[in-house]
């Protein structure tokens, strides 16, 4: 049990004549000479002593320890078998503040403040916000129907009606100096992490009510930074010479304020209902993935900026033509054609090279494919679809463990969430699985008999016309983006949280 050691997120650095304690939003700078001759402080900074274990006689040592305590630098474990929601909210508060600090340390913010991110990047960030806003009504709707408790379902029935229209009212780009139409905004293909956030939070709403509450509270409680936000928006407006650009964003914050949205979640999380330790840990991990998607989106905004200075939106494919000069979703110029989804899958698999996945993700991803196939069968209304889905499921090894493991990466979770989201259309799901097979993803590969059935179905039962090309082409490019995200470096879920 921990009684007052420095939190994991506290880091110590010696620079010149100062020892710096970095924690969340602040740096405490101690005179190095004093630290060197004060063993109690050195022991605390080295995590060799707990703040509660020693009775400090020295007033200066006491002063520093007291300051660090007030800044929540010390961890006191409150782990036990079960927690009230109020206790969970208190524990999560510290964790959320750490996430906020990390989120706001991302270099993209200063690049925006200074106008250093090009318009591509600026617009990618603006439209990421549109997508996250749009996701609120969608995920909340699942909660309104599927949450296990009647009071919570009732709350979300009301919450959804307060949230669903915000993307429409506050997050279009209607600035006279930017030629971005409402249709441009609505059709902008989400960044992989924005998409993952939406798809994942919708899925979590079905399976983990506590995680969904924690994610929603995290989002709403960012209102605590109201003043900093306003200052930031003023700086960005000046840097990009876009006066009043954030007028509607500020109006949205005011609305959140006036409606007490953060307070609503505080109230829900104030009940004495009990939750087991195991459920709480699982929900924290689930909430972490949502946070990781928000954080990864900041990286992807920078990547969008790096594609070029000329404004090129992430437009969906039109007329079967891939062209990086008209849509930054494309990497190569190519006309894509095919009469069925098997041919189409071959075309897209030839567009990109894919790095092999780390072996650790294989079981998790294979299980994601299997679950998506089951989901697809549950939605299917056609005889042939049900049969091919069943044959495919039989052609995969039976799933051993569907649980998230410590090393599960955010990109792997994004891939699984994407598969799950495609399951409402068996043809789309089978199409993206075929692309993954063609790209050499072993985790997507059923036994030979299953592959034959899949190919036959995509060839004869999934005939597409020109109207269908563009929709499948856009989905294919989104899928390949996700696979490439998974093939690169992606952060893993922490093995533990400070509870």
């Amino acid at each position, binding site marked *: 049990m921990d009684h007052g050691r420095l939190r994991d997120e506290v880091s110590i650095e010696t620079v010149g004549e100062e020892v710096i304690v970095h924690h969340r939003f602040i740096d405490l700078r101690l005179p190095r000479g004093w630290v060197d001759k004060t063993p109690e402080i050195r022991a605390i900074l080295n995590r060799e002593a707990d703040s509660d274990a020693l009775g400090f006689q020295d007033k200066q040592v006491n002063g520093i320890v007291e300051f660090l305590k*007030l800044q*929540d630098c010390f961890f006191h474990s409150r782990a036990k078998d079960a927690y009230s929601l109020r206790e969970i909210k208190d524990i999560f508060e510290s964790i959320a503040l750490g996430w906020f600090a990390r989120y706001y340390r991302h270099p993209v913010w200063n690049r925006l403040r200074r106008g250093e991110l090009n318009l591509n990047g600026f617009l990618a960030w603006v439209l990421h916000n549109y997508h996250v806003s749009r996701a609120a009504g969608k995920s909340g709707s699942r909660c309104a129907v599927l949450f296990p408790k009647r009071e919570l379902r009732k709350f979300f029935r009301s919450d959804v009606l307060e949230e669903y229209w915000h993307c429409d009212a506050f997050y279009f780009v209607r600035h006279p100096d930017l030629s971005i139409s409402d249709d441009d905004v609505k059709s902008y293909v989400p960044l992989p992490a924005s998409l993952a956030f939406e798809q994942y939070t919708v899925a979590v709403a079905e399976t983990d009510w506590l995680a969904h509450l924690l994610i929603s509270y995290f989002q709403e409680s960012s209102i*605590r930074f109201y003043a900093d936000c306003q200052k930031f928006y003023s700086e960005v407006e000046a840097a990009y010479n876009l006066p009043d650009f954030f007028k509607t964003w500020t109006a949205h914050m005011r609305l959140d304020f006036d409606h007490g949205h953060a307070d609503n979640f505080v109230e829900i999380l104030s009940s004495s209902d009990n939750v087991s330790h195991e459920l709480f840990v699982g929900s924290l991990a689930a909430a972490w993935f949502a946070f990781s998607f928000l954080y990864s989106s900041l990286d992807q905004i920078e990547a969008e900026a790096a594609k070029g200075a000329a404004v090129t939106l992430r437009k969906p494919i039109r007329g079967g033509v891939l062209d990086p000069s008209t849509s930054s979703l494309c990497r190569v110029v190519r006309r894509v054609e095919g009469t069925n989804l098997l041919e189409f899958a071959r075309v897209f698999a030839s567009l990109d090279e894919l790095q092999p996945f780390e072996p650790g993700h294989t079981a998790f991803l294979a299980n994601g494919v299997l679950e998506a196939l089951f989901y697809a069968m549950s939605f299917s209304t056609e005889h042939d679809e049900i049969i091919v889905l069943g044959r495919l499921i039989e052609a995969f090894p039976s799933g051993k463990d569907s649980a998230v493991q410590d090393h599960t990466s955010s990109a792997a979770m994004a891939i699984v969430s994407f598969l799950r989201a495609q399951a409402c259309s068996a043809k789309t799901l089978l199409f993206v699985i075929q692309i993954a097979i063609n790209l050499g993803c072993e985790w997507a590969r059923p036994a030979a008999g299953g592959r034959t059935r899949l190919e036959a179905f995509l060839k004869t039962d999934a005939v597409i016309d020109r109207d269908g090309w563009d929709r499948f082409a856009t989905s294919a490019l989104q899928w390949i983006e996700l696979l490439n995200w998974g093939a690169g470096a992606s952060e893993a879920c922490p093995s533990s949280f400070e509870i």
Partner: protein
Amino acid sequence: MSTAQTHSFELQIESGKGGSEHAALTISNVAVNLASDEKLQRLLDLLEVPKGTRVTISTKASSSVVR
């Protein structure tokens, strides 16, 4: 404390008019350990810390997380 009062309190603190000497603020029922450099330094001074100790805000918040 009503919701409206809580919000009013937050705005006062954030705009530096609250006069609180304490760095751990309560905003909209959400505990947050943020304040201005000046307030944090004042807190340090109240606590009798070694000469030369200083505190700086390393990270400023930017855009809110939309919902």
